[in-house]
């Protein structure tokens, strides 16, 4: 790409950057004005809005794990209770400044979250929800059954929030400012994460965990970490809640946990304002609809059924969909379909050795970079899938791996990549034993892989999926995520990563599709996106699992050219493939597997000529 084009691009992103800064500034001003009105209004209005705001913080804390990681936590009520009880009981006993208690509360709830997360995250989906549900249940029961400490079902009166000093009195109630600012911080925090490179990483953990692991992401620790952050936020909400009156078990029981999830789902999961809208609806409903309490509850039940069945994606989800469809019909330029064929010209432009990578000779006797020795593997019961498999892949080679279905090719690839662990034998990467290392650790050593069925985040554009591949190439993504768009370094690195991802997509010939969601692109482009997400990290070794499956003839030819160019940059590749017409011309060496055993390793010609191979594989 020419320098002028880059200048134009960064110029345009600066302009949109300006726009959002203006918008966020306007939002904050309006928000603070609203806060002032609330802080100076009557106690009834205040308590109504402030309770809704506290639940807003809770709903945001849940959306962080449920929306971005798919972990439907029902433990938020429990963390909320930990925060509120800790504040109330310590403040009552030791008369400390409540502000000193905030960090203690955040740490206590966060640590509890980390422990609950670490024990329950090995089960996913519904079982995670149930385990966290039980956590809340146990805490409530404890709060009721130890009345000498907790005041039992009656509860205890929370501490008073310190007033403003005299000169600031016109601002109104200090507690209103505190809670409203906390909500603003929570909204900002999650908004920042959503606009950081961590966001596609989190979604990839949610939707395509093997892909995330293969990109060098330690998914388990990130899940525990984000869950701990969410728990700390819920604990902070408890700290806020303790200033609003009596703290009693019924405010933190399992029904509250469920209600928080209802707020998130009704408002719109994985949206910025959805959880707050849901919190306002659920918490204000009883006060605003002032009829017979039973009729009111019946109405509430009916309305929540109606809301979720008519807007399954929530209120904010519906708004987003409407906005999207109106934008689609308005922007004609955007509607023009990219050419269904691949972007050949762009590929030629960027062809040639890319920067930073020494062009290495691919002599036949270069060092061995991946080696398997005597690999034995079987899935539980049944016969061995791999039996004494030896494989040596030399640096700079394309090494083909062929064999009939069920011969153990993908299993071997999974063992090299670390998704499976062999029962006997050794795997070496760059001369070092990697047995027992997780896929993410192997990825960090320079080994990347693609999957037979592409594992990508369907709701994100291709370029953001490629961004996931850059995760371990950019330091400080996690530590900066909470403030990313606010940091100059974050904006700079984000633009650089985006640029890098788009360049890689152009390099593989998918440059016309960078803004398309993966859910909307054809299969061939999906395969190329997967390839780009791997090559973007400039790995030393790439394992490709049946990259040509399902591609058209011209797409296969295109892929062969792309792979040849990647090889020219000195990258080693192990390719599993059935289409020998595509594979053999590319390969330096080919290994043939049959029924879990290596029958031959040789050049493509040797393999093609071998009578045994012709018999078992080529079908003669």
């Amino acid at each position: 790409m020419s320098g002028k084009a880059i200048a134009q691009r960064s110029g345009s992103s600066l302009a949109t950057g300006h726009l959002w800064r203006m918008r966020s500034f306007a939002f904050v001003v309006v928000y603070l004005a609203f806060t002032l009105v609330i802080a100076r209004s009557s106690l009834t209005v205040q308590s109504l809005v402030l309770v809704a705001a506290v639940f807003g913080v809770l709903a945001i804390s849940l959306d962080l794990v449920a929306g971005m990681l798919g972990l439907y936590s029902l433990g938020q009520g429990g963390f909320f209770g930990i925060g509120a009880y800790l504040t109330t009981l310590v403040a009552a006993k030791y008369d400390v400044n409540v502000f000193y208690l905030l960090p203690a509360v955040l740490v206590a709830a966060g640590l509890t979250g980390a422990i609950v997360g670490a024990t329950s995250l090995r089960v996913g989906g519904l079982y995670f929800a149930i385990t966290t549900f039980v956590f809340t249940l146990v805490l409530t029961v404890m709060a009721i059954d130890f009345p000498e400490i907790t005041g039992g079902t009656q509860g205890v009166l929370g501490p008073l929030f310190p007033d403003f000093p005299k000169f600031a009195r016109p601002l109104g109630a200090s507690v209103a400012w505190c809670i409203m600012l906390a909500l603003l911080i929570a909204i900002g925090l999650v908004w920042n994460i959503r606009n950081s490179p961590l966001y596609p990483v989190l979604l990839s953990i949610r939707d395509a965990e093997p892909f995330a692991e293969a990109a060098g992401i330690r998914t388990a620790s990130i899940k525990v970490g984000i869950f701990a952050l969410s728990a700390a936020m819920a604990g902070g909400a408890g700290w806020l809640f303790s200033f609003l009156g009596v703290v009693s078990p019924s405010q933190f029981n399992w029904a509250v946990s469920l209600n928080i999830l209802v707020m998130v789902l009704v408002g719109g999961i994985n949206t910025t304002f959805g959880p707050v809208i849901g919190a306002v609806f659920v918490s204000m409903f009883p006060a605003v609809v002032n009829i017979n309490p039973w009729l009111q509850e019946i109405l509430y039940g009916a309305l929540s059924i109606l809301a979720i069945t008519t807007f399954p994606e929530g209120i904010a989800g519906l708004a987003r969909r409407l906005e999207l469809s109106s934008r689609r019909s308005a922007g004609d330029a955007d509607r023009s379909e990219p050419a269904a064929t691949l972007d050949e010209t762009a590929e030629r432009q960027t062809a040639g050795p890319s920067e930073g990578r020494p062009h290495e000779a691919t002599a036949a006797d270069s060092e061995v970079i991946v080696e398997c020795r005597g690999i034995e593997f079987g899935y539980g019961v049944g016969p061995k899938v791999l039996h004494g498999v030896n494989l040596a892949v030399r640096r700079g080679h394309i090494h083909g791996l062929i064999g009939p279905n069920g011969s153990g090719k993908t299993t071997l690839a999974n063992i090299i990549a670390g998704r499976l662990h062999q029962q006997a034998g050794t795997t070496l990467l760059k001369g070092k034993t990697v047995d027992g290392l997780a896929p993410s650790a192997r990825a960090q050593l320079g080994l990347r892989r693609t999957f037979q069925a592409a594992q990508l985040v369907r709701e994100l554009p291709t370029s953001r999926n490629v961004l996931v591949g850059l995760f371990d190439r950019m330091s400080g993504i996690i530590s900066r995520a909470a403030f990313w768009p606010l940091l100059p370094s974050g904006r700079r690195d984000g633009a650089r990563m985006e640029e890098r991802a788009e360049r890689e997509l152009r390099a593989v010939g998918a440059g016309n599709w960078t803004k398309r969601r993966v859910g909307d692109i054809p299969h061939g482009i999906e395969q190329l996106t997967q390839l780009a997400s791997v090559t973007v990290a400039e790995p030393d070794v790439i394992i490709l699992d049946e990259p040509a499956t399902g591609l058209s003839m011209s797409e296969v030819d295109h892929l062969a050219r792309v792979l040849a160019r990647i090889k020219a940059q000195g990258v080693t590749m192990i390719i599993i493939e059935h289409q020998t017409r595509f594979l053999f011309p590319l390969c330096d060496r080919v290994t043939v597997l049959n029924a879990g055993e290596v029958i031959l390793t040789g050049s493509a010609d040797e393999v093609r000529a071998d009578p045994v191979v012709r018999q078992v594989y080529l079908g003669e």
Partner: protein
Amino acid sequence: MASLLQFILSGLAIGSIYGLIGMALAISFYVTRVINFAQGQMMMVAIMITAAIFAAGYSPWLAVIAGLLSACVIAVLSYLIAVRPIIAFNRFSFGWLVSTLGFAVAVENAAAYIWGPTSRAFPQMLNETSVSFFNAVLTEQQILAIAVAALFTAAFEIVRRHTLFGKLGMAIAADPEMASAIGANTTVFAIAAFAISGLFAGVAGVLIGPNTFANPYLGSTYGIFGFIAMMIGGGTEKPSAAMFGGLLLGILSEGANTLINSQASDWFPFLVLVIILIVTPRGLFSSGSPLMRIPGLSRSAE
């Protein structure tokens, strides 16, 4: 040792109730992969309708039949209103949580609105006669509960394993899209399964009604116990496992009350549940329990 036999037998009796509700939850979960938060309300509706018809002067047995029918009707309504629209949109979304919870809230408060929040009389059935075994005493109602629970569990397993209807259920549980592709009418089947789940919950209601009396807020309490029974047992994989979970829960609660103190049944079963979930997240009697996982562990550890 008098108390040992007594608390085991009383535990089995109350555990049968928990188990029936747990099975009701598990049956609807089996077919739709949805935890029906309104399940406890079906039990409550059975109790309330039975009490109302009995109070109007009809025979208690007629009242019981009407109560059971009403529980089935509520169950089918919960499917049509709160479950079907959600899974038709996205089988894997969590929207059902909102809708079944909303349904439960609506039913509970409708009952409170109609009959008032206070407890009403329930026919005493067999509660006034008791039988003693050695040194333990059970009411005939308790014996009836154990017998009915055993009968329902056995009948359910026989139907599931040996009839076309049951095998269809297994097929739908495994893969609803595949099952409907080979000609199973999943909607009709789900309605039938929900009616059965309503029957299980309703039976639990009329069995415990003589002890609890008729109160519109019973549904939530017993719904939670049924849920715990299902989780302890592993009913999410095999509905009848929820019955074993319920019996274990009943014995644990009674045992905690007898051996620790009178409040211990509030927290002791939960403690057990936490330990069980940490050891075997899918429940004690499921195929994923530790015994079954050992080969898997050795596979990945080597």
